[in-house]
């Protein structure tokens, strides 16, 4: 591998999911196909910059670019046999990414990327039995991260990036379990925020121990998305409770994540990788929404997430320069605790299988494919912290989710 000093203009987008959807990591087709490992992988393509900012100096080409998009399909079913309730939600998102890295010198690189994490959305049938908790939620964010990477020795590199997040959310729920307007329509409220920006950072270390094993460590900081002056709109309100449309403030923490992992170059054709992510979900204890209308006041919605980990493994087979194939999987532990299972984030522990391949079309250009399938365990769970007239009420039943994705990307290196 040529050691070149590189200045990469690389913005890294941390596409972790956060409150409001499944945690499906989709930051690059090659790494996704390997179970979304990557913190210890070097010399592949520009996608590595997401997994570890220190990897920039280990890329093989002076200029590395990678761009792609993924179609993500996520479905969830709900049922409760006591009351004969059956509902389902089918959602699709199309996250995409762009990475670019420049090796300024053989010790230094700079990069930039633009990326939208999967449009995490859950939409239930309006007025379904859980409508007092959520009817629909749609969260989107773009993370932009300029990164620098520096080799302190031939085999050890450090990297850092500044993360800028720009995002928005739209959330609708019914006002209570029974409130209707004068015509029998259920009363509901939509909160809408866009252009919310926040900052964070990402630091990492890559250490190549020998020609087989490379270790990586990456830490992404917590990012607090602060909504100020978002819009709250009320619909189908009864005449006596005519809340005027107004504004709200809210803060949602995107938790910090620590990843450690390694890659093992078994031989010239086979590469294995293992990652462990630990996400500090504990920061998400309540979703607090402050309405500017004093008659409504502050809505505190307990979530009480617990910090949790994800175990990943992947394998790559590259028999020639032209073709490489990958397979992988991961086991993702849900941060949701019993009794706090809110149907806006219907997730449970999951096992994912991933696969993919790349094909070199021209000496500089590769096409990357990936596919994933997530299998969630069925769970019987409930949200027990919704309060009405002084009593805590419980809403729950059986939930089962599944998700799969198909992705296409291009890698361009020269």
């Amino acid at each position, binding site marked *: 591998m040529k050691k070149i000093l590189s200045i990469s203009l690389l913005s890294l987008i941390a596409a972790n999911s956060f409150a409001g959807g499944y945690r499906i990591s989709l930051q690059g087709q090659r790494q996704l196909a390997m179970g979304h490992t990557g913190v210890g992988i070097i010399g592949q393509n520009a996608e590595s910059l997401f997994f570890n900012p220190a990897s920039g100096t280990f890329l093989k080409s002076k200029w590395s670019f990678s761009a792609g998009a993924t179609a993500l399909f996520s479905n969830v079913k709900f049922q409760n046999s006591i009351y004969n309730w059956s509902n389902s939600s089918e959602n699709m998102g199309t996250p995409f990414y762009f990475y670019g890295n420049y090796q300024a010198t053989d010790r230094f690189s700079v990069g930039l990327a633009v990326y939208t994490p999967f449009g995490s959305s859950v939409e239930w049938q309006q007025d379904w039995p859980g409508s007092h908790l959520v009817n629909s939620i749609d969260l989107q964010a773009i993370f932009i991260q300029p990164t620098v990477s520096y080799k302190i020795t031939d085999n050890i590199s450090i990297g850092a990036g500044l993360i800028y997040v720009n995002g928005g959310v739209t959330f609708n729920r019914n006002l209570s379990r029974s409130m209707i307007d004068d015509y029998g329509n259920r009363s509901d409220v939509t909160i809408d925020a866009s252009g919310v920006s926040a900052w964070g950072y990402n630091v990492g270390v890559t250490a190549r121990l020998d020609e087989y094993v490379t270790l990586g460590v990456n830490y992404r900081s917590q990012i607090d998305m602060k909504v100020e002056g978002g819009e709250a709109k009320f619909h189908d309100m009864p005449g006596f409770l005519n809340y005027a449309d107004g504004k709200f403030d809210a803060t949602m923490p995107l938790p910090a994540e620590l990843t450690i992992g390694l890659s093992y170059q078994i031989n010239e054709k086979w590469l294995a990788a293992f990652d462990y992510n630990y996400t500090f979900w504990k920061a998400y204890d309540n979703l607090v929404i402050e309405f500017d209308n004093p008659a409504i006041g502050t809505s505190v919605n307990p979530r009480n997430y617990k910090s949790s980990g994800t175990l990943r493994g992947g394998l790559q087979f590259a*028999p020639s320069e032209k073709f490489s194939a990958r397979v992988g999987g991961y086991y993702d532990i849900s941060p949701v605790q019993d009794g706090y299972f809110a149907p806006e984030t219907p997730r449970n522990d999951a096992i994912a299988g991933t696969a993919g391949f790349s094909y070199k079309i021209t000496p500089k250009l590769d096409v990357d494919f990936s596919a994933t399938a997530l299998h969630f365990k069925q769970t019987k769970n409930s949200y027990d912290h919704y309060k009405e007239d002084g009593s805590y009420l419980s809403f729950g039943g059986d939930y089962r989710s599944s*998700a799969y994705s198909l992705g296409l990307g291009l890698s361009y290196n020269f």
Partner: protein
Amino acid sequence: MKKYQSIFLAAFAFSFVACEPEFENPVTNESYSRGEADFTTYVALGNSLTAGYMDGTMYRSGQRYSFPNLLAKQFAVVGGGSFTQPSFNDDVNDVGGLLFMGQPAAATRLILNMSTSGPENLTGTPTIEISDLQAKAYNNMGVPGAKSFHLLASGYGNLANMATGTANPYFVRHATSPNTTVLSDAMSLNPTFFTNWIGANDVLAYALSGGTGENQEGNTDPSTYSSNDITDPQVFEAAYKTIINTLTSNGAKGVVATIPDITSIPHFTTVPYNPLTAEVLGGEAVVTQLNTSLLGPIKQILTAIGEGDRIQLYSTTSGNPLLITDKTLTDVSATLTAALIANNYPAETAAVLGQVFGRARHATRSDLFVLGTSGIIGTASALPSPLDKLGVTFPLEDKYVLIPSEQQQIKTATDKFNDIIWSVSGSKKLAIADMNAIMRYLTTGIRLSDGQWYTADYFKGTENMNKVLFSLDGVHPNPRGYAFVANEIVKVINEHYKSNLPLLVPGNYPGVTIKASN
């Protein structure tokens, strides 16, 4: 190369097979069962509680929350047929009430007016015309106001009998012929399953009248009864047996319900016996004035004849009792008048005072007041000051209050009627929804599996707006309350007929109607 490529393409395709989430035990209608019951044709027999009456009247949007209509939706899951109810399409403005030959005959429905924070009749004119005859038997044969024997009365639905007061306006609208009976119209549908909740009016009509009717125990001729009388138990038993025997004559199964105690119904437990605080009366000075110029002298005279307990002096620190007329007290008007004259009161004044206080006493915690009392306390009596304030200086009439002897008659009759319901229904092995017991528990609170606590309280405002079960008339449930009733009946059916029917969540149903203004 191609070999590897095709392997991986195959792997892709494979990963998308069966990606729809599937439950281990999916919930479908087949998950439920009717057990030993047959819900093919469900007919509901009863009074206003069955018809879906609320807020003081029948009205179009309220009727769909009747408990039989809600039950029918659960029955439909396990093969139950369609469920029809008498039409209120002519309630075009959804205000309820009644018209007879174009003249208003019953008031519009009660709503809560936020700007006056009290229940009021909704502004509007009734359009429900009694003489618009539908002549049709419906699955819901609940007739508001019906007593037990009325269900067997020929001509109870005859328009011509409205003039003599022997017909029921609601039954008139849908009776299949002038001289049919409620029971025969019900049977014309060949019910396979029924609910029968009848008997409340046989005793509660008396209670709602404040005990102004007669206890007809011993009089077995109901044609001599007035509407506010308590039915004779033998009359009740004979009627109830006929109803049950007829309903089960073709093998139909069903649920009967018992009659609640009045102490479980907010209509009788909301107005306290002692709401007259110094503040309500108009200040400490007013209290002192009343004591020295009116209550004091009267009490003194009464004490002298051994009846001093009838009147209490008012306190400035606690709530004072309402002044009522108690017809069971000895009339001491003459004694009072004579004593007042002896104390140099002018003869006319003494006569008036004697008349007013002859059978008056202050209420105790053993007295119960009807809901409407709160609206008339302190309003003008026919007399000038100081005897011009109803319930304060002028005693409330009998119709506002249930004194202990009246309550005792109600309790005795309720218990007798319930004993009859238990034994007649038990002998036919019917399911019994003990609404008497359920509503008694409700007064101290019942917690459902969703975590919500329900009580028998009247609407208090936003603090209990999501959990109040009674409508604004204080007697009938609101939609959420009827869902509560339906849910309790579903539980009884599941237990007794070994069915597996889905339950309801009362909290998902609307409560009382609140309006910004009226």
